[in-house]
């Protein structure tokens, strides 16, 4: 294993998360690192039916499930395959093997808290998240997972911007 070991990626069903995963895939190939995809499962998501809570606070989350949940894993496996095939295979040492090494984890709690904890538990070399377009200065500090994570994490955070 390379000195970059593991890369934790923050995942939900958003485009921003997909961009973060794409960036992490590139990194994982280049650095010979393992991807650990982490989803922080919130209070509403835990208690309510799929989709029921999505409209409440305007943030899309994944179907509920526990560690090893199939719907989460299936969706992320599908994204990973799409991303790798979009990028083409064969370039770089890691790519001949197909998909990068990876695991998926669902962690209860606020996304920031879940990613900070997972970063520590996995001793990750970095945490990769997508940015969400929260407007205004205050929004930058409080309203986005990526900015909160940058304030709270005890290891490097990579924020992947929108197109």
């Amino acid at each position, binding site marked *: 294993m390379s000195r970059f070991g593991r890369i934790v990626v923050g995942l939900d069903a958003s485009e921003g998360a997909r961009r973060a995963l794409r960036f992490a895939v590139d990194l994982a190939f280049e650095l010979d690192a393992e991807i650990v995809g982490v989803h922080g499962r919130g209070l509403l998501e835990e208690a309510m039916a799929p989709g029921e809570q999505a*409209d*409440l606070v305007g943030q899309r989350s994944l179907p509920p499930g*526990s560690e090893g949940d199939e719907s989460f894993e299936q969706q992320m496996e599908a994204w990973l395959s799409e991303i790798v095939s979009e990028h083409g295979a064969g370039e770089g040492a890691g790519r001949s093997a197909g998909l990068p090494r990876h695991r998926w984890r669902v962690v209860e709690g606020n996304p*920031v*808290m879940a990613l900070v*904890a997972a970063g520590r538990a996995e001793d990750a070399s970095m945490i990769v998240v997508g940015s969400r377009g929260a407007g205004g200065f205050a*929004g930058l500090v409080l309203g986005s997972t990526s900015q909160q994570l940058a304030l709270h994490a005890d290891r490097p955070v990579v924020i992947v911007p929108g197109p």
Partner: protein
Amino acid sequence: MASMLLVAGDPTLDRHETPAGHPERPSRVGAALAGIDAAGLKEAVVRLEPRRATLEELARVHAPGYLEALRAFCDAGGGNLDPDTVAGPGSWDTAILAAGAVLAGIDALDAGAGDAAFVAARPPGHHASADLAMGFCLLNNVAVGAAALAERGERVVIVDWDVHHGNGTQEIFWDDPRVLYVSTHQSPWYPGTGRRTERGGKGAPGLTINIPVPAGATGDVLCHAFDTLILPAAARFDPTWVLVSAGFDAHREDPLAGLALTAGDFGDLAARVQQLAPRPGRLALVLEGGYDLGALERSVGAALAAILGHHYRPESASAGGPGMDAVEAARRAHEEGGDPGHGVDQRMSR
């Protein structure tokens, strides 16, 4: 026996709006207050004047930069703080009124105005840490109250019987020998913290007590936790004040969790926290969760009636659910101790 109940919190000043369909909604406070009337306690109630917590009072537990950013976020129109938590233009004022209501209750008790206080305000607080809003919570109301007392030299027990673990409160007092934090909560469940091995930091070993219980646990399980672990541990701590993070979402009808308590069980728990208080006038219950309005009304009524020595039991106690072994395991974890600081990888502050 207590006879005067101080009630803090004013729903007419509540301007913390959440989207339609969100379970943490303004009508919760009305339902909680209706429980007081339903229990026939109207005569015993003294309503307290609303007041706002000052920045200085909030800064005992929250980072000044967080307070500034939260106020600016609300003033700018607000938005989502995480997938569960929203704030709007009126949320800052409502939040400082909720924290202020705890302080108003404590000060009125301190002045000898009553025997117990009930803080009926929102948003709830026990998930909010020093610098992170989450789980519907913006400011940690009960922590603001406990910190005010601790600063006056008091020894405070916080009993958190909300169905969710109060990660924010635990974190705030993790290393603080002036405060004993005890939580019963469903596990595994949001927010994922509150394992029985989380026992407090080096400065306060054993002063965090977590009693996670499985889905389906009934009132007898929590009463067993009080009788065998919480009451003896609190007696050893010898508190001068008792604050309760009184969530009522462990009720069997609550939509956000899976415990199986009834209103009668909350009466039994309330009678036990009253035993913890060193004397009348040293017990305050602070509303946290509780999302089924009918269950909330009945449970608040039963809890406060038990404290005032009135008979009001709209539902009988529940028994027979799983979790006795979990309580035993928590008791052993507390008594055997272990490395302070073990199992705290979800703490946010460093």
